[in-house]
């Protein structure tokens, strides 16, 4: 057997995959968004450019004078990623180039602040893939509730107290709103299912026109779980039915990852500090637990998530690994 020593720098340079984001970024330990963004750039390939809304991703990848990006990347404001991406796409078109534009934002800039720019982008059907990293609150500014924050989650602006058990309102059903724009492809994905995520990015990239991807991206600080457990938490969000993995084309449901064994929502909730009040001795806690279970059951019902026996691409089969790293996507 021969031994060859190669420097780690050379090894990094010769990795057998493209990655649009390099190491050295300042994301927290175990950041779900950093992982999600890398997986997106990995499957979108090098011929893309990014319009990034304000948020964690923008902040942690570009501490002046450095950048973690290996792609053309632009940041303007919190509210205008959709508009900036539209402009970039129009400029490409005018120059006769085919580089695809990807807009990226968190749930704050997508669901709330940048929503009208996004809606306009979809309405004009720009050839842009809009990726929303959904970590269910304004994590960058200190964990304020957004319209994506799930019901009953505690944040600094939806605290637990005498009046309320965390957030009073429901999580906005953004994917249905997006689909109502009659776009060719809109889907949800999770970092816990990287093969499924890659497949959806590639499918969206292949569409000429506006597409949308909502990626559930766990946040160890905002959700309050051990840094090492991000994938575990994200997986349970899917397996409980609280974050269904679905695909919508022209507003119609065309795909849903079946759940082999729907898990009770408590398994997901009890791992996270933001739901810890639901496990206190309080009659309201029990009611809110039941409420969240009902939401999961509702998702399972309307998206027909209940699996029909063992399926290689269901919630337990699609993350199966094999010797040598061959995944299905």
């Amino acid at each position, binding site marked *: 057997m021969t031994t060859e020593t190669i420097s780690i720098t050379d090894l990094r340079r010769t990795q057998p995959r493209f990655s649009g984001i390099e190491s050295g970024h*300042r994301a927290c330990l175990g950041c779900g968004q950093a992982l999600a963004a890398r997986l997106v750039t990995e499957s979108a390939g090098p011929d893309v450019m990014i319009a990034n809304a304000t948020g964690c991703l923008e902040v942690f990848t570009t501490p002046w004078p450095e950048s973690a990006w290996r792609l053309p990347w632009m940041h303007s404001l919190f509210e205008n990623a959709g508009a900036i991406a539209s402009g970039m796409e129009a400029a490409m078109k005018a120059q006769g180039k085919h580089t695809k534009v990807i807009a990226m934002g968190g749930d704050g800039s997508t669901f709330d602040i940048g929503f009208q720019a996004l809606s306009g982008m979809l309405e004009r059907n720009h050839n842009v893939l809009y990726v929303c990293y959904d970590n269910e609150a304004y994590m960058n500014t200190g964990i304020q509730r957004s319209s994506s924050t799930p019901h009953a989650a505690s944040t600094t602006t939806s605290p637990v107290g005498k009046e309320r058990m965390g957030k009073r309102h429901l999580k906005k059903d953004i994917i249905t709103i997006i689909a109502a724009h009659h776009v060719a492809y809109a889907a949800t994905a999770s970092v816990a299912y*990287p093969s499924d995520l890659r497949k959806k990015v590639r499918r969206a990239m292949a569409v000429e026109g506006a597409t949308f991807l909502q990626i559930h991206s766990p946040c160890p600080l905002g959700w309050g779980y051990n840094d090492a457990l991000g994938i575990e938490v994200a997986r349970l969000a899917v397996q409980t039915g609280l974050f269904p993995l679905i695909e919508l084309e022209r507003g119609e449901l065309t795909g849903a990852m079946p759940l082999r064994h729907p898990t009770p929502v408590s398994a997901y909730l009890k791992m996270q500090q933001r739901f810890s009040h639901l496990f206190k001795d309080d009659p309201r806690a029990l009611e809110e637990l039941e409420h969240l279970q009902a939401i999961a059951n509702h998702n399972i019902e309307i998206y027909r998530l209940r699996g029909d026996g063992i399926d290689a691409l269901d919630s337990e089969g699609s993350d199966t690994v094999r010797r040598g790293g061959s995944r299905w996507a």
Partner: protein
Amino acid sequence: MAILNRGAFAHPSTSLQYHTGTWRVQKPVHEHRAAPCHNACPAGEDAQAYLAKIAEGRFQEAWETIVRINPLPAATGRVCHHPCEGACNRGEYDEALAIHSAERFLGDEAIKHNWPYPMPPAPLESAPAVAVVGAGPAGLSAAYHLIRRGYNVTLFDELPEAGGVLRTAIPQYRLPRDILHAEVQRLLATGMKFEPQKRLGRDFYIEDLQRDYAAVFLGIGNRHDREWSVDGVTPRGLRSGLELLEEWVALGSVPTPQSVAVVGGGNTAVDIARVLKRAGTHEVHVITHQALPGVDVPPEITMTAIAREITQAQDEGVIFHEFRGIRRLILRGEKVVGLELVHMKKVPQADGKLLTKAFEGTETVLHVEQVIPAIGQDVLPFGVEGLLENRPFFAVDHNGALAKHPGIFVGGDACGGRGTLSRAIGDGRRAAEAIDAYIQGKELPQPAPVQVVPYSQINLNYFEHAARVKTPVLPLEARKGSEEVEGGLSQTQIFAESQRCFSCGNCFACDNCWTLCPDSAVLKTTELASDGSHYVFDYDYCKGCGLCAHECPCSFIVMKEEL
């Protein structure tokens, strides 16, 4: 073009200048820990390692991985009791891997394709010589490992052929003789000098060996049947299970009365019971004060015979009487006509020890024409009287060194409390290591404490259920003589089975760490990295979140405290 103000742009990948590794308080490291199968093997085989080779399609390398430890895989794949399968983590998930089938397949392939044993250059003529007495599993293993360590080895046996109990007492339906013969001949050809028909105490003496050789290994087995009587009464013409078994193996026939009771719960008892059934005895009973194997039966009271052999014997019509002892022989003259049985069980005593107790009022009578004790053997002291000192077995340490006799090492059944092929092979290997240290005048290194990967540390999310491969078994009506009962599997089946392995404690290159690291601090290598994995941690950037360790399916990545 407008001039960009400072901060408005940055060059790509410049974040690499900033080493986020400084944030870290714990770091992931690759740590190979023992798979339960490896830890459970009395011979010391690492089944996980050779199953991995099979899964990569490297069958010859898989066989070489086995024979670096155990030179007789075709035999052990058939005869061994396979504690590896009992320990297999996959057993808790769905079904244990069919490790014995893989071992047997590799052993057979090696014979078929004449794969050479992976041997270092032949020992120099001037190298020290070691004598090995007894060419059974322990002796063959010791001789083989001594040659691998560069010694000249002379192997003595009283019989004309090597193989020991494998040849003389294991029935052919468990171990076909063409397979055994081929494997043993190939092993003898690795460079040991074989001296058949030389008996210790008749043709040569311990003193000769001590004079002519740098060290001596005794693998002489336990060939002396223990005295058996019921309250001092023995029937006329009593013959032991081992004696009859050897007769069947050598001649192909044994006396067949209409009904027989075999006394004992070990492999000899089960073997002779099955042999008698094949030979034509109508009714064969096995009487044991131990329990039949079962899921909830504690091992200390379970029969020592291999569970699958017991099941096959039951299929063949052998009647087992568990928790029974013999209170009295019912004789007509000196001939047995029946046994008085009584319920017996091991019961904990005040000092915590287990003692077999008979329960009054539970006596029954069993009508049989012959009773065959198979209650075990001691070492035959012939030629080794001075070393045995009236003990039933040799008093040896963990490595087989005989107390008070430096330079003499013993292994296998001669040590007592053994009784398995794999243990004998392991004894031979450990003794070879100890002999090497003895001759070189070195201390043996203390064995490092073994860390085993428990089931709870396997990340089951990344595995799918898959049924264990079914091994073909000879139909009952065809089990008449010496045809092998259990069949082998095809290469395709073995390959598929190897894919079920959890790869406990070892990297199987699934890409999980590389795929899931949020900081791109796991780098993939095209060749095997120095730690045996396919990945390298870039500690300049790893922040120590622990995600890779938690998501490693095989528990090969562990987090270590830093600072």
